[in-house]
């Protein structure tokens, strides 16, 4: 993972981004529990707009999928998207630890 320029600025920002992602995962869990689709889409929009900036294009791709969820979505699929996000987060953490 991590195709963006790795500069001192980016190292600092990436470290902040990992904390931000942790918060977004917690929010996603709450929103899934309350089945708040509008806010889940908003969350996807934020992920799409941020991941690639920090060298994590998979986060942006996943965010785009979440951003455009349809009204009649199967909630099992949304649960799957959350699991994908957690998996990506875990990989990012390993990447961060190695750098």
């Amino acid at each position, binding site marked *: 993972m991590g195709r*963006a320029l790795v500069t001192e600025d980016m190292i600092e920002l990436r470290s902040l981004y990992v904390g931000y992602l942790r918060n977004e995962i917690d929010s996603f869990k709450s929103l899934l529990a309350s089945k708040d689709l509008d806010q889940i889409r908003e969350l996807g929009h*934020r992920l799409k*707009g*941020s991941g690639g*900036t920090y060298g994590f294009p998979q986060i942006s791709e996943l965010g785009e999928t979440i951003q455009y969820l349809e009204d009649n979505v199967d909630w099992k699929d949304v649960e799957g998207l959350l699991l994908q996000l957690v998996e990506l987060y875990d990989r990012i953490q390993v990447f961060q630890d190695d750098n």
Partner: protein
Amino acid sequence: MPKRIMVVEDDPMNAKFFELTLKRRGNFDVVVTEDVNQILDFARQGSIDLIIMDVSLCNSFYHGARVDGIALSRLIKDDESTRRIPVLLATAHAMKGEQEVFLKASRADGYVSKPVIDPNEFIGKINELIA
């Protein structure tokens, strides 16, 4: 004296990215806000050289109603005292044709897609608009 950029952005990580990139790579003075009164005040004071405007804003209200970056950009372009300020729209909405729709509706001067992948290209775009 450095040029001053106002960043209108509700996402803290994107705001941080814009702020650091503009300060450290572009040597710009930067103000970050999503407060509409503050945005209009700063713009009317004449001290802002360019505005980076997020399209989707969750916490910005004007006369009691929620406003997005499109409406805010229009407010700036409708005001005689602020219309000269270049507005660069920034958004993660990237469906085909949306860029043109957003630019026309907002009367903004340029558009940047999020995520911003190349900070140098981003700074270049800003320099073009304020040249």
